[in-house]
């Protein structure tokens, strides 16, 4: 999977690229409009992450030319502008998702993966981790091939974990993934705790190993320890 990160803030571009590389993507960085324009003209990418305000040009026009060159490339906008008009305009000209800065890398990673799943398999795929199998299209979870009913939030939580295997996830990023940015933190952190507790109980009851680990002061990690 090839990715292009178009972002003028060098450190942020590096962070995103490093995070995604660890997740198995081949990542390239473009920090100006001209550089990005040249890269999308020369190479094909599976997914492009674009900042809207770039030196030398506007992210929107980059998206437009990208769409005309390669219609199948997934596009995610990352922008500090959180005006509704920008979001609508972004989606109208063909981007697939919109993340407002500052965002969680784990959230970006989950969105990239979900986008690539939708692009490549039209959702008719499965996610497999050890004995856990998830069918995103029907939102069904199987453990040892036995269906395991989960609540909506527990399902979202599991999918978020599966997109970020062996990654330390902050409580805040989990809360904002489940309920959006505006959720009141104190309450949502409690709810994260109880959802994780329930998810873990259900998975273990159906015979899965315990993959959730808590990290002191930070949050949780899902994976083989």
């Amino acid at each position, binding site marked *: 999977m090839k990715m292009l990160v178009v972002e003028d*803030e060098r*450190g*942020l571009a590096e*962070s*995103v690229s*490093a*995070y995604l590389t*660890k997740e198995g993507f081949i990542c390239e960085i473009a920090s100006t409009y001209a550089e990005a324009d040249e890269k999308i003209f020369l190479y094909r990418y599976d997914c492009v992450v674009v900042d809207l*305000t770039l030196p030398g040009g506007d992210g929107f026009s980059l998206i437009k030319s990208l769409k005309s060159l390669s219609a199948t490339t997934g596009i995610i906008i*990352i922008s*500090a*502008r*959180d005006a*509704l008009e920008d979001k609508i305009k972004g989606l109208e000209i063909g981007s697939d998702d919109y993340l*407002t*800065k*500052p*965002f*969680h*890398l*784990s959230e970006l990673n989950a969105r990239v993966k979900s986008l690539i799943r939708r692009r490549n398999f039209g959702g008719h795929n499965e996610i497999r981790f050890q004995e856990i199998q998830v069918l995103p299209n029907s939102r069904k979870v199987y453990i040892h091939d036995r269906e395991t009913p989960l609540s909506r*939030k527990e399902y979202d939580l599991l999918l978020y974990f599966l997109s970020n295997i062996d*990654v*330390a996830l*902050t*409580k*805040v*990023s989990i809360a904002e993934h489940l*309920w959006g940015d*505006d*959720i*009141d*933190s*104190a*309450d*949502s*952190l*409690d*709810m994260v*705790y*109880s959802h*994780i*507790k329930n998810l*873990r*109980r259900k998975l*273990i009851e159906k015979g899965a190993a*315990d993959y*959730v*680990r*808590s*990290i*002191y*002061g*930070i*949050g*949780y990690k899902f994976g083989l320890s």
Partner: protein
Amino acid sequence: MKLLTKTNRVYLSFSTGIYLLTALAFYAIIKLVIYDEVESRLLVEKRDFEAYIQAHNSWQGGYFVENKIAVVPVKHALPTEDFKDTLILNRYDHELVPFRELTYYTRINGQAHRVSIRKSLIQSYRLIEVITVSMIAFLSLLFLCSFWFQSRLSGQLWQPFYNTLAKVRKFDLSSSTPLHLPAEEITEFNELNDVLQKMSEKIHQDYQSLKEFTENASHEIQTPLALINARVEQLIQSDTLTESQSYWLDEIYRASRRMSKLNQGLLLLAKIENRQFADVDLVDLYVLITEKLCDMDEVLQHKQLRVFTKGTATFPRMLPVVLAEVLLSNLVSNAIKHNVPGGLIRIESTTGQLCISNTGPAPTIPPDRLFERFKKGRDATPYVSPTPHDNEGMETIGEENAPKQYAPMNSVGLGLAIVKQIGDSYGLTITYTFADGEHRICLR
């Protein structure tokens, strides 16, 4: 008071005053002239009388007509000679007739006499009357004419001023149409228009640059914050972090999230103040607030809050949909945040009023300062799970992450300020009361 009314009023009172003074002066002068004339005639007659007495040394009367002269013998002659007004009954029609009388003393045949020579004033009075009446008529006519002319003239003279006023009033800062004021014939108005035009251009420019500044500032702040967040997220992937390092990282992470929220809140406030939300729609706030509560269902259940809604009337208001959402979600999350476990939230919509009340501890800041920026009450009561955590025999997952140890994340203290700002900008009166352990915020 309108300018023209004021000038008319001043003009009217001033010219009435002048007019009355002129009339009085005129009257006095005419009277003076007439008296002077009458008195000099009386003196002439006195001389005639003296000459007659000298010639005849006696007085039989008959030389003068009735009432014209009276000669009365007195004991002592006085050396005085004076004029006075007197009324004498007319013999025929029994009317009192005004006379001017000259009284002096003289000796006739060695005997002292008081002599009064009189002259009728009736003709002179008629003259004064005629002159006064015609003067009143002419002056009134002149007065009315000049009043009419003056008000017409000043109406026309001030017309450019009223045009300018109407244009300035219509001028809308947030719209992109600049203020256009035409050149006028009168220098002062021309200067006024010039100054206003320049001023409006400057204001418009400042407004635009402020708008751009707030947007750019937000962008410039959010990007480094995004970098901090990303770097912290990378850092926490390290397996070698000590407990205190993790704690510090968590603090950095939360602080940067808070800063970002603060920045977004301030930007929103600035945008509302600058009226950058243009499209207003008719929004039923009662329907919207019940929807917002439904969205928060999970939190409500979690905090075991009961919700009662009582709507006897809809509450439609004109405001931008985005801001209606912000307004109500701030109110709802406020009601949840400052609630007590097992408490309640009440929504009441009656004609012209929408109220949201919630149970909670008494406020720690005076109610009138509650809507100020960065005015925070004590932090929301940390939630304590009502049932002990039963882990059903499982190995505990990170008991250190259990809710009882969460420090409640500080709110940025802008929620109610934003509510107030939206209210002020779109004609909603927002009031807060606390009674019987319930906080109550009402929109009118």
